[in-house]
């Protein structure tokens, strides 16, 4: 039963990802992206990582996608009339990846990956949110703090790239 859910989610994720790139109308692409985000959240749920699923929807579908939609609307992007002939390239790359994937799964052998532990046992019944919070502030404190610095750079960078400086407006 779980397998059925996994294959459904995986298939839709793959399909909508391709659609995001292939569709000509940017609004349609963004909506395909939205569908993909939901299904990724679904995958998280199958892994018993409910917190991540919720965060996925709130942050990605709620904030990032909305941002994309705003940008698309503000830039008034029309349908992409010029169509670059990329099918040969896309087919080649796709074939490459498919072959690799087949090789990977075929040659996998019978060893179970070392990280295969059930989430429930891993967090010892502490609840998703609490577990993540614990880990983030203890074991993974270092990347967490560095991530905060990333936010600072992103802010300053965005302002530098996009904002008209006060002097510019006057000029």
């Amino acid at each position, binding site marked *: 039963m779980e397998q059925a859910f996994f294959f459904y989610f995986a298939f839709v994720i793959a399909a909508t990802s391709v659609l995001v790139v292939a569709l000509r109308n940017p609004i349609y692409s963004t909506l395909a992206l939205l569908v993909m985000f939901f299904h990724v959240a679904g995958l998280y749920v199958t892994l018993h990582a409910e917190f991540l699923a919720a965060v996925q929807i709130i942050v990605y579908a709620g904030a990032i996608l909305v941002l994309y939609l705003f940008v698309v609307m503000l830039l008034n992007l029309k349908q992409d009339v010029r169509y670059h002939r*990329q099918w040969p*390239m896309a087919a*080649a*790359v796709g074939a*490459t*990846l498919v072959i*690799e994937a087949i*090789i990977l799964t075929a*040659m996998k052998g019978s060893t179970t990956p070392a990280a295969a532990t059930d989430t429930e046992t891993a967090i010892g019944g502490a609840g998703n949110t609490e577990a993540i919070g614990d880990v983030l502030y203890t074991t993974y404190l270092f990347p967490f703090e560095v991530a905060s610095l990333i936010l600072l750079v992103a802010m300053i960078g965005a302002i530098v790239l996009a904002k008209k400086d006060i002097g510019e407006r006057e000029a």
Partner: protein
Amino acid sequence: MTDLLIKLIPLFPLLAVILNGLVGRRYSHEVAHRLAWGSVGLSFLCTISVFVDILRTGTPHEVIAYQWIFGGDLTINLAYLVDPLTCIMLLVVTGVGFLIHVYSVGYMHGEEGFTRFFTYMNLFMVSMLLLVMGNNYVVLFIGWEGVGLCSYLLIGYYYDKVSAAKAASKAFVVNRIGDAGFLLAIFLIFINFKTLDYTKVFAQVSELSPEMATAIALCLLVGAVGKSAQLPLYTWLPDAMEGPTPVSALIHAATMVTAGVYMIVRNHAIFDLSTTAMTVVGIIGGLTALFAATIGLVQTDIKRVLAYSTVSQLGYMILGCGIGAYTAAIFHLMTHAFFKALLFLSAGSVIHALSGEQDIRKMGGLSSKIPWTYRLFLVGTIAIAGIPPLAGFWSKDEILAHAFTHDHYLLYGMAAIGAFLTSFYMFRLIYLTFYGASRMDHHAEEHVHESSTVMVGPLMALGVLSILGGFMGFPPEHGWIHEFLAPVAGVGEGHDASTGLVLTLMMIATGIALLGWGLAHYFYSVNSSMPDRLAAQFQAAYATLLNKYYVDELYDLIWVEPLKKLGYLLDWFDRNVIDGLVRAVAQLADLAAAGSTWLEKYVIYSGLNVIGYGNHLAARQWRQLQSGMVHHYAAIIVAGLFLLAVIIQLFMQL
């Protein structure tokens, strides 16, 4: 004390370089040139002292000047090894170098880049000294590169001239090709011996397999071919004549181009192990000697004739190395330095006298106008032609004799023909330049003047050396130089030739030289109003010699005929045979020259050009991979990943 002097030898020119290079603009030309030749002179004095010491004790000195990279497996020091071979090279480099520096004071007088010239010359001296004095391959290579760089700087000294700039680049690039081979050899040596010091390498040389010895020797040969302008990497040397004449004398005659010969002799232990490599060395030397000589026959620029003659003489030295006559090769290197420097400097004097004219078709009749230059040029010509008792004869004959007595008949033949041609074209040069009616441009003719003492002085010194220098190797195979170099260059295989054979070979060599002279005289001076006594005098000597050996029968035949028939015969002989011969030889020479030029242009150049063009072509094609489109780039990443993944997975399956 000697060790200190050894360390000082390269330091004096280095000091001059630093002073002249950095602050040269602040002081006058007088100070600059005094620093320049003064430093070389001091180096020469140190060399003499060191030489005397080695003469007395016979033990080589190994001196570490500066520990650069040391410890464990890899030890590279700036260290010097001074043994008899080094001594000879040092004497040549500092001695001849000193004379040329003094000469340059006069030649470069009034030039704007006077100080720059001397800075480069001193830099060259430093590099060349490092090259010959180093005790390991790294110092050798540093000197090797340094002389290449200075050659580039000095050939392109007149940087305003496009031809000079092109010639400089050509020299550097062709040299670089040789350097690649040399680098490979150094690494092969390191792989096999785990050390780069000469003494340690040569001690273990017997452990090499024949194939490895051949490989190393051939790679070293590639380096020598590039630096010493042998086939097929000789094309840069004639073009290098674009530089000022003292540069041609010092770098492209006496010292830098001989570095290849030095390197082979230094590594003779490796070459001795591989008969294949020796054969290749000999053949290349012989072919070059012959080939370059044929080209020299028809050149019209005075410096080019000398350039091709240098290539040819270097061929002799390389040939000598190839047949195991290392001492002979070094001996010829030394004498060649004397007379070639003399010839170049005299040519410079001629050019100077004619206000820059270098085409010998526009010369003639200069012997009376610039007598000292003429006389010294003559001395040099006689020396290079290999006419005894001047220096060139002894060294060249020794190589020829060695070839003959050790059954290298083909090489002997090539060398002998080359000697004949050498004599011929050198005398042709002197006849066209100094004899006959003046074909000079009138303006130049008015200003013809003998060069100043500062230029003629060194010429005289070199003249004396060209006359007397040969006696260092007298008697052949047992002269002073043979004993001196024996511990380093190895004693050649037992010289079991009889004195009679030795004398015969000497006579043949002389005969060849004189034949060349005679023929040149006939061709270029028959119609001149030049004092016949000189020609007649030498003609008689030539005739006498010939009489003694092969002409008796011929003349007997002629003499039995009645006088009338003799008259008619002589007349017929004169009109058809000799003139026909003249025409035939001229045509042959033209053909050879054209053939050589064609070979040079289409085969050698195209070979080198193919490599260069191939690079450019590849560059242009591969450049298109950078299309500018991001998705292409991403595709390249993915494609690359895929390839690498396949390689890894294949490897992991095995």
